[in-house]
């Protein structure tokens, strides 16, 4: 199995995940990201499989995906490739949006993650560094991903924008 280690920096709001795969090559790991068929088999969590409707793996390039929940609810997201240095580094901005990949201004601000690939003595590894812009963006992002949370959150944001007690 892959050996996973991770470190969190709460103040900087970064998560670093290191995954070592025995007997894999860097090129093989790269394919997990580059190949749409493989990518959609691991991106979505259990119960929320991901379908990538677009995967332009280049710079500038965009991927658009949706994750379908148990009730047929679809949650769209997008990636913008900021850097693709095959086979050593990927830098991706990811956020929420619509089916066309337009960022949704009412959704949390996009985050960014960097994936660095490296060969090891016995296989290959990659390191993912996720950077969140701020706690509130991060919190909103995750709260919105709750099993029921996303639908509720969208409804609440609409209502709150219409009725905001503290607007001067």
């Amino acid at each position, binding site marked *: *199995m*892959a050996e*996973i280690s*991770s470190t*969190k920096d*709460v*103040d900087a*709001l970064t*998560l670093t*995940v290191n*995954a070592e*795969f025995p*007997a*894999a090559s860097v090129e*093989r*790991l790269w394919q*997990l990201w580059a190949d749409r068929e*493989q990518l959609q*088999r*691991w*991106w*979505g*969590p*259990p*119960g*929320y499989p991901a379908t990538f409707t677009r995967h332009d793996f280049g710079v500038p390039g965009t991927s658009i995906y949706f*994750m379908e*929940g148990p009730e047929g609810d679809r*949650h769209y*997201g997008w990636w913008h490739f900021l850097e693709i240095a095959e086979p050593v580094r990927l830098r991706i901005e990811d956020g929420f949006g619509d089916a066309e990949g337009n960022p949704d201004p009412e959704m949390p601000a996009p985050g960014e993650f960097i994936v660095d690939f490296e060969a090891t003595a016995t296989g290959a590894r990659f390191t*993912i560094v*996720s950077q969140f*812009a*701020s*706690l*509130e*963006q*991060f*919190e*909103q*992002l*995750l*709260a919105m*991903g*709750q*099993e029921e*949370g*996303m639908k*509720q*959150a969208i409804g*609440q*944001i609409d209502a*709150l*924008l219409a009725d*905001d*007690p*503290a*607007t*001067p």
Partner: protein
Amino acid sequence: MVVRTELDEAEVDAIFQALSDATRRDIVTRVIVRAQSVSEVAEHYEMSFAAVQKHVAVLERAALVAKERRGREQIVHARPQAIARARRLLDDYEQLWHGRIDRMQRILDEGNA
């Protein structure tokens, strides 16, 4: 991105209400970087001091910031509880990646079989 959090619905309500305004999101970001007085915060916005105070009060009710009196000034700081929440959220995000990496391993195993 789908992750469970420990926030209950009332907390989520309060947080969303507080963060539904761009000014308030901006205030939180500023005080996370450095605790500062309400007047310092107010310098960044073209609105009255009273309006900024109102925004800070909404954030306070959502427990995102706290005010502390220091002499004649009120210092706004991010609450330590928020940092604790950040830690739990990072835990959730970490678990999400662990799941992804396990699924990656399965794909790799199929290729070798």
